């Protein structure tokens, strides 16, 4: 770093000069971060390239590997399963996070500290330690190998509840108290006064739930056995292992299909996603 006096006297560097200095070392890093994805897409549209980037750059390019994916490999079914499960889980997560987070945030329930502590503890415990007991519970409820096994254990999420709770504690309570004075019931206050105010944090909960659920792997792998119930990540992982000789272009086409929804959601909502993470990090 240059001498402090010099920095103090010199005018602040023009944004362009400062920006370009940063680009010089950030652009190579960004390319290194994105290169594997470029490789993935390039192979997916190059039917003759195998897993060689050099051949993929020469072409020819077409979408034949995507056609194979949907026509003969049944990936369409996996895609629909993933979408359906993700949509239902997101809806359930948003509804329950709003309900529970609100109650905890307003401390309306006996033992509020106990429940909040339970949520924080749930967040700390690695979910994998519960994989066998959860499997046994689902077996007892005769829910293994059903869509319910992919949905019910994930319908209520501690992280979403925690986000809403933190948000509610910072909301002014005056509006709700005014509504109460006007004779509104608890339920009306929740539905008509609090819920509209929770929209921003519920958007964050929805997006986080979608990303987590779409990419979930271990639990769908062990809770479901039938091919017709498989989600996309599980289907892809198993397809990559049953092939005699690995067909890279085909797998990369599948990977691209699996990435598109989350990348689209991320790019569209990056502000909410990053702010949700920041809110979570501030505890």
């Amino acid at each position, binding site marked *: 770093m240059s001498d402090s006096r010099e920095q103090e006297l010199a005018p602040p560097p023009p944004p362009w000069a400062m*920006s370009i200095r940063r680009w010089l070392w950030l652009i190579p890093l960004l390319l290194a971060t994105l290169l594997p994805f470029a490789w993935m897409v390039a192979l997916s549209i190059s039917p003759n390239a195998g897993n060689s980037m050099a051949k993929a750059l020469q072409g020819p390019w077409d979408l034949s590997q995507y056609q194979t994916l949907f026509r003969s490999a049944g990936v369409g079914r996996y895609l629909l399963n993933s979408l359906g499960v993700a949509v239902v889980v997101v809806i359930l997560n948003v509804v329950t996070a709003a309900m529970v987070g609100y109650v905890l945030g307003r401390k309306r329930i006996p033992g509020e500290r106990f429940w909040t502590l339970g949520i924080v503890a749930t967040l700390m415990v690695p979910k994998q330690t519960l994989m066998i007991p959860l499997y*046994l519970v689902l077996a007892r409820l005769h829910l293994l190998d059903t869509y319910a096994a992919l949905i019910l254990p994930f319908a209520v999420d501690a992280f979403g509840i925690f986000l809403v709770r933190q948000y509610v504690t910072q909301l002014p309570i005056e509006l709700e108290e005014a509504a109460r004075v006007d004779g509104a019931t608890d339920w009306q206050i929740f539905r008509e006064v609090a819920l509209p105010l929770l929209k921003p944090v519920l958007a964050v909960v929805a997006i986080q739930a979608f990303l987590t659920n779409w990419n979930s792997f271990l639990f769908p792998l062990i809770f479901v056995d039938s091919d017709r119930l498989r989600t996309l990540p599980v289907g892809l992982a198993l397809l990559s292992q049953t092939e005699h000789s690995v067909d890279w272009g085909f797998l990369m086409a599948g990977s691209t299909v699996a990435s598109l929804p989350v990348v689209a959601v991320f790019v569209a909502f990056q502000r909410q996603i990053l702010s949700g993470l920041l809110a979570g990090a501030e505890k």
Partner: protein
Amino acid sequence: MRTHSRSTAWFLASPWVIAFALFGLYPFLFSLGASFTDYTPLAPSSTRFVGLANYTRALNDPAFWSALRNTALFVIGTIPFTTAAALALAIAVQPAFRGRTLFRVGFFLPSVVSIVVLSLVFKGLYANHGGLNGLLSALHLPTPAWLQNPRTALPAIMAMDVWSASGYYMIIFLAGLEGIPRDLYDAARLDGADGWARFTHITLPLLRPTLLFVLVVNSIRSLQIFAEVFVMTRGGPLGSTTTVVYHLYEQAFSRFQLGQASAVAYLLFVLSLGLAWVQMKAVGAQEQSRS
């Protein structure tokens, strides 16, 4: 304001109460009990109490220790790099400059993509005639069989983890950096502190809570590495990439030794809690010795 009934409150809280009981507490206690028996879902009626037999068998299983060793190597070998990279990226993309959002979004991108997809892509990159070896041979460098060699397979997966996780923790560090008052830096600059001094005397001490959070969250996450191993190596070659959770999965769902697997799961649970506790103590002690 406390005259109304609590029934609405309980109704609103009911999803968590039910889910926590059914999918949290009950399985947790049930399997804690099962870990002291020879329970198997195939013949639940003939369950017998076996005391600590599952734990002693798990602890005497060389495969468990090998999995633990691999997981420890993974944690020790990735966390310093991920943390350093994430912090450097966060500092680099914090101030206003042109294209800042593009860089933030780009570095974070691997975090939103499925680990299965990342693993498939890297399996292709690491393959014998794959992307990485294509590059290395063009540069006339040696081209090892990354995932087939017991010496390179785990480091290869670790390198992917550093690549994919750094952007995520970059965002967490950004949150911490935003909380540091700007005028501290201005004051330090007036006192003649250079960039490195400002980093070690302002940024690092004030970032300690964030650093603690990142270390704890990332180590607990690293203890759970599974999908990467399942897709890229299935624990091989020669068990060199079998992590604790992969070991747990094999034991429970390939060999159906559920009692012993439950014991391993509880050891993992205790390990995670212990790790979080040790790190909190360590950072807390440092904080006290500084102030």
